[in-house]
């Protein structure tokens, strides 16, 4: 029998019982929709984490003090430290392949400029900081290594902090801000960067040479962490091992003893963070996949009912010369049509709900073409898999019994 004719028969059978068709498809619609939406949300979380980590800069290696490392590096991160200023200088001096190095001291204080005052984040950084983070200047320029060495009272300012202190659109370069009474000259205005990983405004910050910040604000003598940028991606592992060796040597850690610091490449941090997102995606996806399975069983159920209801029709078709194969195809195509149309609507629903989630809740969602393709083929396979048994049952009916069926 011609394929088109079978398709027509299937379409007619499905149209005949619109409500039933719709309800049967609903299982697949919800299943496919859920899979696509869940995977989109999971992938969105992953993409967001990746983007945020990438915004730290390229080829970055993070060195964190690690005296409480037993609980895992997250607990260690930010704990006060084993990383001395001398370690920092030694890395700068001795490790090869380093393009830049900078700590990031975090503190906060009231800042006064003219008659305005504000409470932005204050970061103590090295002169390489803006380069590592590939942060450009809107106006002015970076402070120099001499400024760092001498703990000069100079500052870089983010857009948000500048807008608040000096008014929107005005150039703060050359102006003076007062931090805890000490006057700092603004030498550079940074371009807008946006939200950070933790969701704070990166531009609501003032950047001082770390030496000045330590001396005048925090009083620290050690770092919690600092970042090193390798000259190229291929140099990252080499630089990482050099730093590890150097720090072990400097901290006099014998062979077989644990490090009291942590060296992580950006890749490792990305991997660790995205691993969680991946697990989440998998979990959400498989729960949604469960509903797809239920949808498939729904199709099988309704196809079995349909075969029973249409036993006489099957008998008539056989009497006028339909081969078993023709009957098998007819019901199989019907099941596949159910699941495919359901799948297509489900794809629409999934993409739509991913859009709604991202606009209404502000979550990043990424609908991957792969997930759409997989959902499409998966629903076709569900149709074939769950449609085969009823279709085979129909095709194996005895024509005489089928004709007599009441």
């Amino acid at each position, binding site marked *: *029998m*011609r394929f088109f*004719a079978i398709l027509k*028969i299937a379409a*007619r059978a499905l149209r*005949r019982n619109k409500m039933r068709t719709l309800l049967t498809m609903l299982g697949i619609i919800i299943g496919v929709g859920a899979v696509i939406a869940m995977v989109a949300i999971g992938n969105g979380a992953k993409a967001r984490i990746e983007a945020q980590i990438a915004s730290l800069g390229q080829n970055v290696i993070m060195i964190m003090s690690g005296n409480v490392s037993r609980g895992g590096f997250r607990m260690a991160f930010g704990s006060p430290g084993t990383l001395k200023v001398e370690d920092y200088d030694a890395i700068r001096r001795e490790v090869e392949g380093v393009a830049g190095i900078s700590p990031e001291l975090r503190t906060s204080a009231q800042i006064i400029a003219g008659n305005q005052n504000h409470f932005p984040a204050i970061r103590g950084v090295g002169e390489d900081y803006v380069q590592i983070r590939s942060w450009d200047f809107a106006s002015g320029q970076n402070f120099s290594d001499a400024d760092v060495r001498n703990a000069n009272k100079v500052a870089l300012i983010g857009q948000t902090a500048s807008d608040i202190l000096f008014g929107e659109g005005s150039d703060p370069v050359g102006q003076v801000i007062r931090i805890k009474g000490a006057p700092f000259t603004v030498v550079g205005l940074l371009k807008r960067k946006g939200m950070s990983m933790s969701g704070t405004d990166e531009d609501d910050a003032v950047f001082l040479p770390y030496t000045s910040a330590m001396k005048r604000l925090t009083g620290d003598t050690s770092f919690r962490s600092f970042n090193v940028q390798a000259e190229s991606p291929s140099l990252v592992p080499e630089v990482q091992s050099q730093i590890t060796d150097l720090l072990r040597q400097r901290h006099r850690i014998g062979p077989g003893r644990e490090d009291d610091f942590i060296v992580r490449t950006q890749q490792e941090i990305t991997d660790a963070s995205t691993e969680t997102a991946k697990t989440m995606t998998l979990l959400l996806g498989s729960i949604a996949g469960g509903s797809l399975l239920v949808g498939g069983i729904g199709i099988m159920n309704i196809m079995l009912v349909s075969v029973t209801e249409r036993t*006489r*029709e099957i*008998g*008539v*078709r*056989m*009497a*006028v*010369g*339909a*081969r*078993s*194969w*023709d009957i098998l195809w007819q019901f199989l195509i019907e099941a596949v049509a159910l699941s495919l149309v359901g799948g297509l609507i489900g794809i629409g629903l999934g993409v739509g709900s991913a859009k709604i989630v991202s606009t209404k809740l502000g979550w990043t969602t990424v609908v991957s073409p792969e997930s759409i393709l997989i959902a499409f083929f998966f629903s076709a396979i569900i149709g074939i898999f769950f449609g085969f048994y009823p279709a085979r049952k129909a095709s194996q009916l005895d*024509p*005489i019994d089928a*004709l007599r069926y009441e």
Partner: protein
Amino acid sequence: MKPVIQLEKINKIYAGAVSVHAVRDVSLQIEKGEFVAVMGSSGSGKSTLMNLLGCLDRATNGRYLLDGEDISELGRNDLADIRNEKVGFVFQGFNLLSRTSALENVELPMLYTRKKSQASQRERALLALERVGLSDRTDHHPNQLSGGQQQRVAIARALANDPSLILADEPTGNLDTQTSVEIMGLFQALNEQGITLIMVTHELDIARFTKRNIVMRDGRVTSDQPVTNRLVATEEFQRLREEQRAVQLAP
């Protein structure tokens, strides 16, 4: 010329806890252009014989030649093809596909056909409906047609693939007398055009419209005779009309 049907010592035994010998040693020959009624009480084996003739079932043993072709040993799919090309079925309960137009019902056998035809499917279906006098009802669904009209659609469907024979199983069983006569008239007209017809019936009156009566009992053919005082449907129809008029005129 080869006979349309040639049965040689056909037996059908249904195996089971109690095996039933439904058809015993039936040998039969039906020539082209015959119009045969198979009669018998229920359980006489006439339905089983029809199923065998219609290739819906296979004999336990014996030889069945249809159009000179031995089909005793054919498999399920080959039998389906034989049914499609050589046999047209007419059932007691019409067995039309519901919510499907008359035209599409007639086209049904053509969907499964493997032989190519010059005329388009639609043209042939329209022609078949014209032959049963339903050219004006092609788009009607079965539930919009009377019983007689439905049976005509079924007959058109049986004619669709130009079969060697038409098998009718109690074709008038669900119809009133007048409609029954109409259907027999149609059968007689088709028979005039050279179509071979075999019909199962338990009504003697209906059997008298055919040319040859076969009576079965306990799986055997007990009588096989030509019909002597054959009824002509057109005359019979006229007589019925007059009877009705007489009833209406009676005080």
